[in-house]
C-alpha cells in the first residue's frame, strides 16, 4: 500500500502527471477515487478508473506475495524440489547410452541444446523426441504432445512417420511380453495417426516469425495443456545472417532464452534447441565451436555436442548441472537413433555394450572440446 507511484505499471505520461501533481504512494491514489483523480490531474473519468484498477491489482498482488501465498515467484524448500524432480518424467531417446549420460533422458522444465556439424543427426534426434514424448505412461513415457518449430525446413514427414511406426511396434512388443490390461488399453490410442496429429508444426522463415511465435507460445500451451516438449530446430539459422547490429542480436537472443525458461517452468515441458557449429580462428588453429557466441552458452541448461570421429558419430555431454561429462557413440538406423539394442524401462534389461569403448571424461577432454 505504501508502494511508490513511480513504480506502478501505468503509462509513462500518466505517471509523469501523477508525480507532478504530488502523489507519492499508491494508498493516496486509492483514497482519492476516480472522480477526484480525474479533476485533479485533468484526465477523463474512464482513464482514471482504469488506472485505479491497475493500482488495485498491483497492490493485491503485492499483498499476496508478502503473505506468502502463490504469487508469480515460487518459494519452496530443497526437499520439495527433490521430491518433484524424482517423480518427474524424462523423455527417452531410445538410445540407451544417450539416455544414460543425460541421466535418464531429456529432462522436463529444462532447456537442452544440441549442437553439431551438418548432417550429424540433430533433426533426427528432434523428430525422435517428438515421437517419444507421446509414449503412454504405462510404457515409461510422459504421455505428452509436441510442438515443433522448424526454421531450416529440414523436417521430413515421411521420416517422422517411419520413426513413429518403429516406436509403436516397440511398444507392441513390450505389451505382448507383459500382457497387462493398461498396456493393451494404451496401445489402442497410441497409433501412427494419433502420434502425427499431436505434433504441432510451425515453419518460421526468419527471426521475426520466430520471435512472434515464441511470444504466442504461452497462449498456445495454455490451450494445449498436454504439450510436454517444445523443439526449436535451428535456432541459429535465422540469427546468423542479415544482422549488422550484433548487440541487437544478443539482446533478442537473451530475451528469447528468458521466455523459453519461463515456458519450460510454467508448463512443465522440456525445451530442445538445435544449434549449428561455426569455425573459430585461434592463434595457430581453427576449431569448431557452437554458433551464436559465448553468451548464448548460458541459455541452455544442458548442452550436447554431436560430432564425428572418422566414421563414427559421437555425442558429448558438454554442460549439465547434474551429470558428468562423457562421450558415447551412437548410430542412426532406419528406426531412429539407436545404440544397437532395444531396451525397456519396465523390463530393466541392461543395455548391451556397443562394442566401441566408452571414453572416460578425463581422457576425452582434450579431444572432445577441440576437433
Amino acid at each position, binding site marked *: 500500500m505504501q508502494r511508490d507511484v513511480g513504480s506502478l505499471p501505468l503509462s509513462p505520461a500518466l505517471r509523469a502527471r501523477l508525480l507532478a501533481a504530488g502523489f507519492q504512494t499508491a494508498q493516496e491514489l486509492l483514497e482519492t477515487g476516480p472522480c477526484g483523480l480525474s479533476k485533479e490531474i485533468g484526465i477523463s473519468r474512464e482513464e482514471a478508473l482504469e488506472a485505479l484498477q491497475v493500482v488495485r491489482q498491483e497492490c493485491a498482488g503485492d499483498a499476496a506475495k508478502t503473505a506468502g501465498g502463490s504469487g508469480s515467484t515460487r518459494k519452496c524448500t530443497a526437499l520439495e524440489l527433490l521430491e518433484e524432480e524424482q517423480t518427474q518424467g524424462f523423455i527417452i531417446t531410445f538410445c540407451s547410452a544417450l539416455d544414460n549420460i543425460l541421466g535418464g533422458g531429456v529432462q522436463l522444465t529444462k532447456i537442452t541444446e544440441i549442437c553439431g556439424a551438418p548432417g550429424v543427426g540433430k533433426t533426427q534426434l528432434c523428430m525422435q523426441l517428438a515421437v517419444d514424448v507421446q509414449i503412454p505412461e504405462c510404457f515409461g513415457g510422459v504421455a505428452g504432445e509436441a510442438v515443433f518449430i522448424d526454421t531450416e525446413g*529440414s523436417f521430413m514427414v515421411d521420416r517422422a512417420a517411419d520413426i513413429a511406426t518403429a516406436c509403436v511396434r516397440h511398444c507392441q512388443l513390450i505389451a505382448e511380453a507383459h500382457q497387462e490390461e493398461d498396456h493393451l488399453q494404451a496401445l489402442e490410442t497410441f497409433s501412427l495417426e494419433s*502420434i502425427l496429429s499431436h505434433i504441432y*508444426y*510451425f515453419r518460421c522463415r526468419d527471426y521475426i*516469425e520466430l520471435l512472434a511465435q515464441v511470444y504466442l507460445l504461452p497462449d498456445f500451451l495454455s490451450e494445449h495443456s498436454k504439450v510436454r516438449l517444445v523443439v526449436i530446430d535451428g535456432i541459429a*539459422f535465422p540469427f546468423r*545472417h542479415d544482422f549488422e547490429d550484433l548487440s541487437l542480436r544478443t539482446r533478442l537472443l537473451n530475451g528469447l532464452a528468458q521466455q523459453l525458461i519461463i515456458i519450460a517452468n510454467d508448463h512443465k515441458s522440456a525445451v530442445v534447441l538445435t544449434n549449428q557449429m561455426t569455425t573459430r580462428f585461434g592463434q595457430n588453429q581453427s576449431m569448431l565451436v557452437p554458433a551464436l557466441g559465448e553468451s548464448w552458452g548460458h541459455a541452455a541448461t544442458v548442452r550436447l555436442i554431436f560430432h564425428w570421429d572418422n566414421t563414427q558419430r559421437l555425442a558429448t555431454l558438454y554442460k549439465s548441472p547434474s551429470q558428468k561429462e562423457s562421450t558415447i557413440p551412437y548410430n542412426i538406423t532406419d528406426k531412429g537413433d539407436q545404440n544397437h539394442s532395444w531396451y525397456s524401462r519396465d523390463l530393466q534389461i541392461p543395455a548391451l555394450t556397443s562394442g566401441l569403448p566408452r571414453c572416460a571424461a578425463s581422457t576425452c577432454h582434450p579431444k572432445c572440446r577441440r*576437433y
Partner: protein
Amino acid sequence: MATKKLRRAKLSQELCERLSRYQITTCQDFLCLSLLELMKVTGESYRNVQKLLRKVSLACAPKMQTAYEMKVRRSINPSAAFLPTSLHSLDKVLHGGIPCGSLTELTSPPGCGKTQFCITMSVLATLPVSMGGLDGAVIYIDTESAFSAERLIEIAGNRFPTYFDSDEKLFCMTRSIHLYRELTCDSVLKRIKSLEEEIISKKIKLIIIDSVASVVRKEFDTKLQGNLAERSNFLARGASLLKYVAEEFSIPVILTNQITTSLSNGLAIPADLVSPAHDLSLSEGASGSGKKESACVTAALGNTWSHSVNTRLILQYHDLLTRQIVIAKSPVAPFSTFFYTVEKSGLVLQDGKNLSNLPWEGTNPALQTIQVRNTALGNALLKTTDETPGDTPSP
C-alpha cells in the same frame, strides 16, 4: 512477413501514426524493442503493451499444422514429392529421387559430370508426369557459361528416343528451359529474388543454379579480412530465399558446388602458402600428433553452407572411366555409393559393380573427402603396372 506494416497488423490508426514518429513502421521494428521501450514509445501501460505485442505477433507468426495434416497432404499427391533422376538405384535409395521443396547440392571436382547431371535433370523435368517428369519449365541459372544446347538435345534424343521422336517434341522441350547467364553475386541474388514471379508466370517446376561456388569465389577472397563474414552472409541470404521459393511452390532446387583443399591439422595456413580459394574447414587429425599436414579435398563454401543445404550428392573419380556418386547428406537416405559413366545419353549407372544396398560408412558431409582426377590417375597407373586387382582407393 517481417516487413509487414503495422497498419496491416490491425493496430489502431492513431497508434500507427504515433509509432511512425519514432520510425517504427513494420512488425520487425516493433518486435525488436524491449517492453520498456515499447511502453515509452506507445505511452501505454504494461498490460496493454503485452496485449499489443500479442496482436502484432499474431500478424507475423506462421500458421500451425499438425504432422498428420502434412502427411495426408503428401499422400494425396505422391508423385509431386520427388523428381526421379532416372538412375534407378539412386532413386530407390533416395526414396523417389531429388526431393521437392528442399535444396539439393551437387559437388564434384571439375569435369566429373555436374553439368551433365544438371542438363539431364532439365530434360527430365519437362517430361510428362506419366514418364516420371514434372511436366513443367526449368530455370537454369548458368554462371560458368557451361550449358550447351547441343548436348541437351543429344542427351534427350539418346535417353528417351521413343518420346523425342520428332523435332517438334525436341523444340517444345528446349522452349521450356529458360537459361539465365549471371556473372556476379549481386546479379545472382537479384535473379533469385525475381524467381517468385517467374515461377508463377512460366509454370516452372525445377530451378538449377550452376554453379554457386564460381561466382562466390570470384568475388569473395577469404584471405582478406571481413570477406569470410560477408560471404557467409551472402550464402545464407541466398539459401533462405531459395528455401522459401522451394517450399512455397514445392519444387526441387539443384545447386552445384566446387571443391577445395582442407588441411587436416587445422592450422590456419598463412595466405601466401595457399591458393586463394582455400577454405579453412577442419577435418579430424588422422595421426595422433596432428603435426602431419595431410591435405584432403572437400566440398567448398564452408561449414555454414553445408548446414544450409538439405541433401548433398558428391560426384568423384574412381578410375579412368568410371566415377562414383556418393550420397553424403540426406534426411531420408543412408550413405551409399554408385558407379556411373558419362555417355551419350548422359549419366549411366554401372549396375554390375553396384554397392547400392550396403549402407556405406560415411562421415561429416562438410568434410567428406572427394577423389580428384590425379589420385584416380595415379591409382590407375599403379594398377596397370602392378597387375593386381587394386583395392578400391579409400575415399
